[in-house]
């Protein structure tokens, strides 16, 4: 860039040495020149490539399509922090809408969508940030096309009052599953951030309408990581699910894994998923579990399992008994009719009955 000989002149723009000059709102602004960190993070590379691709697609639009995006941009002009309408070019509107849609796996929209302001705020019953989980409970999802976008910061000291600039997107469009939004895995496993008791976390979230690309108003919450909820200071109530990653009983050589047995309303209906093996003739297995939710009842279920090894595709009925004991919760598993197959995948629904 060719520098003017003196920065005393107006309209001095560009960088010289360690100084960068620009004109903003009719005023000359000088600032220290920033040097970008060398290289891009993989996430930055993906994001910038995505935006470049969308941006280049704008040039391929017809005149009529561009006019429609111009009309939309005019309607979409937001209000800036200082109350002045922010500029929004048709190109910006096109990139913004399509990058939102792309976040949730939707294809490029070449025709401008109809403008709507009615993407609502996020309504939910409560919110936990505990050392074990990040969960929104009873989220009211406006429609199946609305996805939640969540930004969160890494752990901050409790004294930090403004960590909003440190938030990054942890959930670029999450579907609400059975009323909950669970972010633990995304935050911990994907982002590599830790959940630390006593630390403060900054969260920003909003709805994204995947059909139009429009977003709703952002909600801002900062919270200290603790065992009780952000809204009502209530302990977390887990779903009534018995979960076992894997357990092997040495004495009887019985093995169970990938277990999720959940209880639902409807005269107590049960959905069961697990893999079960009895590696000798002892078919019964008694598993002693900790941390089973109090809501899991004392009951019995019969479910169907499919053979996986000795008689693949065979089907048998398997009984599972749930018994709360004083110091643990006992789960007994037993294929009721002894057959050649000893290895079963269970995926079934049933009702809970009294033993």
């Amino acid at each position, binding site marked *: 860039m060719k520098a003017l000989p003196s920065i005393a002149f107006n309209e001095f723009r560009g960088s010289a040495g360690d100084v960068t000059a620009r004109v903003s709102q009719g005023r000359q602004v000088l600032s220290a020149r920033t040097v970008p960190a060398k290289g891009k993070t993989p996430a930055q590379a993906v994001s910038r490539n995505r935006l470049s691709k969308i941006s280049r697609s704008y040039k391929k639009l017809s005149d009529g399509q561009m006019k429609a995006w111009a009309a939309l941009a005019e309607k979409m002009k937001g209000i800036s922090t200082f109350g002045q309408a922010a500029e929004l070019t048709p190109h910006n509107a096109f990139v913004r809408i399509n990058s939102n849609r792309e976040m949730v796996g939707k294809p490029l929209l070449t025709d401008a969508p109809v403008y709507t302001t009615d993407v609502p705020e996020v309504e939910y019953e409560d919110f936990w940030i505990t050392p074990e989980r990040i969960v929104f409970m009873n989220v009211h999802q406006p429609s*199946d096309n609305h996805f939640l976008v969540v930004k969160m910061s890494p752990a901050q000291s409790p004294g930090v009052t403004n960590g909003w600039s440190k938030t990054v997107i942890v959930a670029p469009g999450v579907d609400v*599953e*059975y009323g909950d939004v669970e972010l633990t895995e995304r935050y911990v496993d994907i982002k590599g951030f830790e959940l630390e008791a006593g630390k403060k976390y900054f969260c920003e979230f909003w709805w994204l309408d995947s059909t139009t690309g429009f977003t709703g108003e952002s909600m801002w919450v900062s919270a200290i990581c603790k065992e009780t909820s952000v809204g009502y200071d209530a302990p977390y*109530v*887990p*779903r*009534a*699910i018995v979960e076992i990653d894997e357990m092997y009983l040495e004495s009887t050589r019985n093995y169970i894994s990938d277990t*999720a*047995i*959940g*209880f*639902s*309303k*409807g*005269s*107590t*209906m*049960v*959905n069961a*998923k697990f893999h079960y093996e009895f590696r000798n003739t002892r078919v019964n297995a008694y598993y002693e579990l900790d941390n089973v939710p109090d*809501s*899991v*009842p*004392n*009951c019995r279920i*019969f*479910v*169907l399992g*499919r*053979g996986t090894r*000795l*008689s*693949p*595709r*065979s*089907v*048998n*009925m398997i*009984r599972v008994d749930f018994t709360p004991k004083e110091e643990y919760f006992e789960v007994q598993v037993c294929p*009721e*009719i002894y*057959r*050649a*197959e000893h290895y079963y995948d269970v*995926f*079934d*629904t*049933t*009702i*809970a*009955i*009294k033993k």
Partner: protein
Amino acid sequence: MIITSTGNNFGAEPVEFKVVLNENYVILNGRVLFDRKTEEYKAADVLEIYVPDLSMKRSMETAVFMNYTSKQYDRNGTIVRSWIKDKNTICLEKVEVNAAYTDFEFVFFCAYLPKGQRETFIVDGEIDLQIENLPKNMYCEHYCAYVNESWALICLGIENIGAVDFGTQFTLDLVNFPKDISAELLLSCPMGYAQGWGNSTLPARIQNGQFICDGYTELQDPQVSCGVIKAYIVTE
């Protein structure tokens, strides 16, 4: 109520389902004949049936029976995973079996549930089912049943089916099971020795408070010794 499928991705004909639609569960009864040789079936990774709006947009997996015929062993079957993918799509796992098998059908007597909920659960509603008048030497020690105004569930594990000869129909009395509930079902019989063709499948029905099985065929004779039945029956 009855709904008719609006399409599918594996070349099957439209199918009518008897359904119970509740915000906490969906119960389906129906049968879908299909041909594994269609291009659509071969192209599909997951089989999908499209239906009018269901009462839930997603479910956990449940079991649907898949039956087929072989020249060697007559009617056989297994179970496949099924789940509700969205309000209008029921998915089925694609399970491969021997290429020589024919006459495939999916048999739905199943319920779809959401993930476990946050509730206080009361275990109640089971009827006091008793099994009586079994054929000599046949026995049934594992059973239960539940009935409400819209649907019923019955589970039976019957042993020593070989106590009757092949081709012989047999009957059990389902004491306390409502006599006005009837359904065409199937008895699924796991075999006693290791093999890979699934269970023998015997036609059966419930009517007038009885479980009636048409018996096993001569081809099934060496294999059948016990049978299980677990079926949600839509009654409204």
